[in-house]
C-alpha cells in the first residue's frame, strides 16, 4: 500500500515540477519537456492506481499507452510548428500582445 502511495506522490511532485516549468520557461523545447514531464506524473498516478496487491488492473495500462502516443503526437506537432516559424526567417522571439492589431 505504501508502495503505491510512494509513486503516486512522486507523480504529483512530477506534475508540480512540470506545471511550473510549462508556465515559467520560455524556450519552446523546454516548455514541451515540461509538459511531457507533467504527462509522466499523470501516467505515474494512473499506473500506481493499477496495482492492487496481486491483481494488476490492465485498464490504466491501456490508458497510459494511449496517453504516450497522444503525447508524442502533440509534442511533434508543436515542434513542427516551431520549425515552420523558424523557416519563415526573421527574428525568433515573438510577443503577440493580445491587444495589438
Amino acid at each position: 500500500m505504501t508502495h503505491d502511495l510512494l509513486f503516486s506522490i512522486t507523480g504529483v511532485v512530477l506534475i508540480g515540477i512540470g506545471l511550473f516549468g510549462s508556465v515559467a520557461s520560455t524556450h519552446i523545447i523546454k516548455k514541451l519537456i515540461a509538459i511531457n514531464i507533467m504527462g509522466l506524473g499523470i501516467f505515474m498516478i494512473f499506473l500506481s492506481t493499477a496495482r492492487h496487491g496481486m491483481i494488476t488492473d490492465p485498464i490504466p495500462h491501456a490508458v497510459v499507452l494511449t496517453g504516450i502516443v497522444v503525447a508524442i503526437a502533440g509534442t511533434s506537432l508543436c515542434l513542427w510548428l516551431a520549425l515552420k516559424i523558424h523557416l519563415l526567417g526573421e527574428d525568433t522571439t515573438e510577443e503577440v500582445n493580445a491587444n495589438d492589431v
Partner: protein
Amino acid sequence: MFRKLILSESLSSQNEMTLLTRCALALVISILTIGLSAALILSPKAEPVLAIEALDKLALSGVENPVTAVLLNFRSYDTLLEIAVLLIVAVTMSTPSNKQMNQSAADTSRWLSVNDAQFVHPILTALLRWLIPLGILLSGYLLWTGAYLPGGAFQAGAVLTGVGVALAVAGRHHFTWHLFIARFVLTVGLIAFVAMAAGNALATGIVLQYPIEHAGLIILLVELAATISIAAILLMLFTQITALPNTSERLKP
C-alpha cells in the same frame, strides 16, 4: 504566461517573468501539490472491481495479454480514435517539403528512394545490414507475442520506426510522403479499424464486437495494419522534422 516564446538557443537567457512572479508561481504550485498529495493520502483507493471484471472476461476477448485485450477489444474505440490523433499530425506534416531540400536529386516519385548523398555514415551503414532485419524481426515478434506477453501494435510500431529512423539518418535513403502509396500506408491502420468495426457490425450486429471464434485472428490483422501505420506516422514525424532546407548541412555534427 504564453506570451513570449523563444525558438532558438541564443535568446534563452531572457526571462518573461520577474523573480517575484516566479516565486509566487512556485508557491501556488507547491500548495497545489501538497493539497493534491493530501487528497491522495486521505482518500482510499477504489476496489479493483473493473480489473477483476476485465480479467474475468479475458477468455472471451481472443487474446491472453490483458492490456492487448483492453486496447483492442474492451476499449478498442479509444485505440481507434488514438490512431486518428496520430493521423492528424501526419496530415499536417505531409506537405511536400521545401523544394530546396532535395538538391541531391532524390527520386520523389517513390516512397522510399535511394539517393546519392554527399555524405554517408560508414558505421551506420554497416550497422544497418544487421539492424534492419533484426528490427523487423523484433517488431514482428512483439506484434505476435502481444497476444500473450507484453507487446503489441504500439511497441512493434515503435521498433519499426527505429529501423526507419536508422535508415533515414544513415543518409542513403529518402522518404517521400505525399505519394498515394505513402498516404495509403499512413492511413491503413485507421482503414483497417473502421473496416473491422463495420464488418463486425455486419457479423454480430454490434459495432466493434468481434465474433468470438475469430476474435484472435481479427485482432492480429487489425494490429498488423495499426503497426504499419503507427510506424509510418512516427517515422514521418521524424523525417519531416529532420529534413533541413539544405541537405548538405544535415549531417554536420
